[in-house]
């Protein structure tokens, strides 16, 4: 396997190095087109971070290309008198400055778009993509008059419609670029490979997992300890920085730039490259970028030549004047449509439809007959015991773990939660029951920060939670699961757990790329912990499967595993046994009891299965129409006439007295 990989790498390296010589020897003159194609590949790779990894649809990415190109153009040109122009080092220094400027703009543009998703985000980026070329055009000639006095007279910041010309070239000692096209080719290869290396490492890091978690389910990511704002800004900034490199190279190679080169169609073409290749796949995006640019630059021109020749020899006049390059958007559109119809995952994307399998009946029957593995205290990972169990906050001097007082939450005129008090002591399981629509989940959401209470206080270990974002609340030790399971579907089981560990890890962007020993150690320890945790929840052999391929019961257990990975003191479970059969329900009930007994966790439990709630809760709070109508031990609550009337029903009461 590794032998083959070395061989593949060697072949690719030889092809990359040998190509320009072959091109020169054969006099085919394709090297300029190939070099330009690589610029677009770089851009598409940068866009892939935003669209493919973080799942943020950006329709104005050409704006960053423009910013990168103009950063290089303006700083490395005599037009505006830049002091950085004219040195042998100019290009090599400015390319970094351009990347930083692009990243800064990434943050500036990213910031207002962070609250929006989907269509709205796309529209805002679209607008931004339009604004930048317009701004560049208009900032070339600024005159400001205040009361008849010209404060600013015909100031030129960008070169305006004429653009910037000339732009300085890169120099290497004893070698001037532009004498041989191969030097440009090798320069973009070096920049491209370095970028690829960095992106590859980012993807397989704490940060890459956070991006994918955001893409899969932003709310669940937030509630698992990933800060969505920071994570999305990093995607915008890093995605933009790569376009800074590509833009710099573009400006230097062309030695002149004009605003017309960065219009909307460039953004769309880049997006096409990412989609054609396969969102999120580095290989695919490279392939998509090369195919589209080379098709545009080489193949359409050659085909035009062929068709005209054909027309002449056949005597068809219409064919002799055809220009297929004018049809490029038609061909792109056609290609993309066919792609979406027959291979929506892209050229190199993971197959969405795996081959049909017919599971062996006997194996299945055995799996069904065997009850889900019973929870065992010995299987609790040691690290979990140490980090969660031996928590210094354990002896809080009798103070409850969580204390909610007078919590109110309104939706318009509806009071969903109405002055609710709820106290959760250490090592306690509290049941929260009530009719559908009574406000149980709304109350959950106020505790976990998805909703801010309109009134009241929520104090966790002496600290107020009101106004904190969900991820900040996770970091303080509260984890949750959802009524309808919300896993990161297209991530592996282990990666789901690792996203849970996110808030306990520290690797930064630089750490992710350069991987110092501390980061390597942290990452491998996190994986080891994740695998132990999977063994504990009974998913040891499924670590590398995609979460969406797990059967229902396993998905529930993975969601609880993910919550445990955040090292919580308090676990909020929203109908954990919904859709489980009695046997699975029983196992899960034991499991929840085990977490309390062995780890000293407290649990707040919404549940409709009465045998679960009544069986393991120490205290039960009953809500009806947002108001607490009862609180007490299970025995007290289930005999309460208000609870029977509003929630349990006469049938339950009858069964209780009978059995």
């Amino acid at each position, binding site marked *: 396997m590794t032998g083959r990989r070395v061989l593949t790498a060697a072949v690719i390296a030889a092809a990359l190095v040998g190509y320009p010589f072959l091109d020169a020897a054969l006099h085919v003159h394709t090297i300029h087109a190939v070099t330009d194609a690589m610029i677009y590949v770089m851009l598409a790779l940068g866009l892939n971070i935003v669209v493919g990894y973080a799942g943020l649809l950006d329709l104005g990415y050409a704006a960053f290309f423009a910013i990168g190109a103009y950063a290089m153009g303006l700083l490395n040109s005599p037009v505006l008198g830049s002091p950085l122009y004219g040195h042998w080092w100019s290009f090599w220094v400015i390319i970094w400055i351009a990347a930083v400027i692009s990243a800064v703009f990434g943050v500036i543009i990213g910031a207002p778009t962070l609250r929006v998703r989907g269509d709205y985000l796309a529209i805002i980026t679209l607008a931004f993509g339009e604004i930048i070329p317009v701004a560049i055009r208009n900032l070339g000639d600024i005159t400001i008059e205040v009361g008849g006095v010209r404060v600013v007279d015909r100031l030129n910041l960008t070169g305006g419609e004429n653009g910037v010309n000339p732009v300085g070239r890169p120099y290497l000692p004893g070698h001037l670029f532009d004498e041989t096209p191969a030097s440009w080719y090798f320069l973009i290869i070096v920049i491209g490979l370095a970028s690829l290396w960095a992106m590859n490492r980012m993807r397989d890091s704490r940060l890459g997992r956070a991006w994918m978690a955001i893409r899969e389910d932003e709310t669940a990511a937030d509630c698992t300890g990933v800060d969505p704002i920071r994570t999305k800004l990093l995607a915008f900034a890093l995605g933009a920085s790569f376009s800074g490199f590509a833009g710099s190279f573009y400006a230097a190679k062309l030695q002149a730039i004009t605003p017309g080169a960065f219009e909307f169609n460039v953004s769309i073409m880049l997006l096409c490259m990412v989609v054609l290749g396969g969102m999120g796949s580095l290989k695919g995006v490279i392939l998509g970028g090369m195919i589209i640019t080379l098709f545009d630059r080489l193949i359409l021109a050659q085909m035009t030549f062929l068709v005209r020749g054909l027309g002449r020899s056949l005597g068809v006049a219409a064919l002799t004047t055809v220009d297929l390059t004018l049809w490029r958007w038609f061909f792109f559109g056609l290609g993309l449509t066919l792609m979406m119809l027959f291979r929506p995952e892209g050229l190199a994307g993971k197959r969405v*439809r*795996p*081959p*049909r*399998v*017919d*599971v062996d*009946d006997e194996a*299945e*029957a055995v799996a*069904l007959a065997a009850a889900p593995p019973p929870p065992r205290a010995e299987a609790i990972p040691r690290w979990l015991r140490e980090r969660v169990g031996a928590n210094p906050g354990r002896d809080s001097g009798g103070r409850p773990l969580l204390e909610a007082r007078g919590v109110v939450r309104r*939706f318009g005129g509806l009071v969903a939660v109405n002055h609710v008090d709820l106290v959760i002591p250490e090592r306690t399981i509290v049941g929260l*029951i*009530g*009719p*559908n*629509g*009574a406000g149980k989940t709304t109350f959950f959401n106020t505790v976990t920060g998805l909703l801010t209470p309109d009134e009241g206080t929520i104090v966790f270990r002496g600290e107020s939670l009101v106004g904190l974002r969900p991820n900040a609340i996770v970091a303080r030790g509260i984890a949750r699961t959802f*009524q*309808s399971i919300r896993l990161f579907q297209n991530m592996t089981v282990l990666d789901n757990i690792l996203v849970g560990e996110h808030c306990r890890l520290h690797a930064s962007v630089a750490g992710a790329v350069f991987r110092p020993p501390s980061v390597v150690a942290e990452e491998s320890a996190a994986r080891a912990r994740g695998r132990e945790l999977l063994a504990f929840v009974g998913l040891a052999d499924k670590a590398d499967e995609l979460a969406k391929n797990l*059967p*229902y*019961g396993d998905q529930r257990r993975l969601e609880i595993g993910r919550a445990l990975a955040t090292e919580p003191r308090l676990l909020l479970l929203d*109908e954990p046994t*919904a*859709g*489980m*059969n*009695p*046997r*699975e*329900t*029983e196992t899960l009930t034991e499991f929840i009891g085990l977490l309390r007994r062995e780890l000293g966790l407290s649990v707040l439990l919404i549940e*409709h299965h*009465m*045998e679960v709630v009544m069986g393991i809760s120490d205290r039960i709070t009953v809500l009806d129409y947002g108001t607490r109508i009862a609180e007490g031990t299970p025995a007290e609550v289930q005999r309460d006439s208000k609870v029977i009337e*509003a*929630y*349990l*029903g006469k*049938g*339950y009461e009858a069964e209780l007295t009978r059995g």
Partner: protein
Amino acid sequence: MSATPLLELRDVHTYYGNIRALKGISVAVSRGEVVTLIGSNGAGKTTTLKTVMGTLRPLRGSVSLDGRRIDGVGTDDRVRLGIAQSPEGRRIFPRMTVLENLELGAFARKDHAAIRDDFERVLTLFPRLRERLAQKGGTLSGGEQQMLAIGRALMARPTVLLLDEPSMGLSPILVETIFEIIQDINRQGTTILLVEQNARMALRVAHRGYVIQTGRIVLTGTGGELLRSDVVRKTYLGEK
């Protein structure tokens, strides 16, 4: 059991995604019956309903309504033929009002006077919906959404009503209510095929039941027989 069953699946094999979820299922529902299908997660219950509804096509086997094969008929036409479904997870239209949701249930019908009657009938069965006619479906509580999903299916005036997990996520008192309503609907003449996790309640209201395990029917009998059987008691009722 001499007459042709109203709904019949014969040796049906269906893939759900890439998994062969049904491996030769035969189920017959006679006119006027409540028949329940019980089984674990992933056993093939929902796949069976989807095959009846036509959102999944069987690889082999036949689906017949009133003696006529309908495997080649599209889902929307099956609604016209008299099959309607209240799907798992309710799947109501969240941004449309309760009234609009119900109106859409009768989308395939042209008999306006009868639609009006059915509308009244649904609101009589579910008085809660009458109070909320102008409210958006998405703002209803879980129990109300379940009522809306069933009500919407009834608006198609089906001869066979398919119910997928109507008790899921409902409070005990609502579970009772829903099952009472299911019996009412049946008494008014609608044949019902009911899929349930809550085997105890389902078998109590059903005339007959089928136990499905990994895509095969392993047991069938009247509701009472199944309630007393060892397999059902151990696996699906959680008794020791």
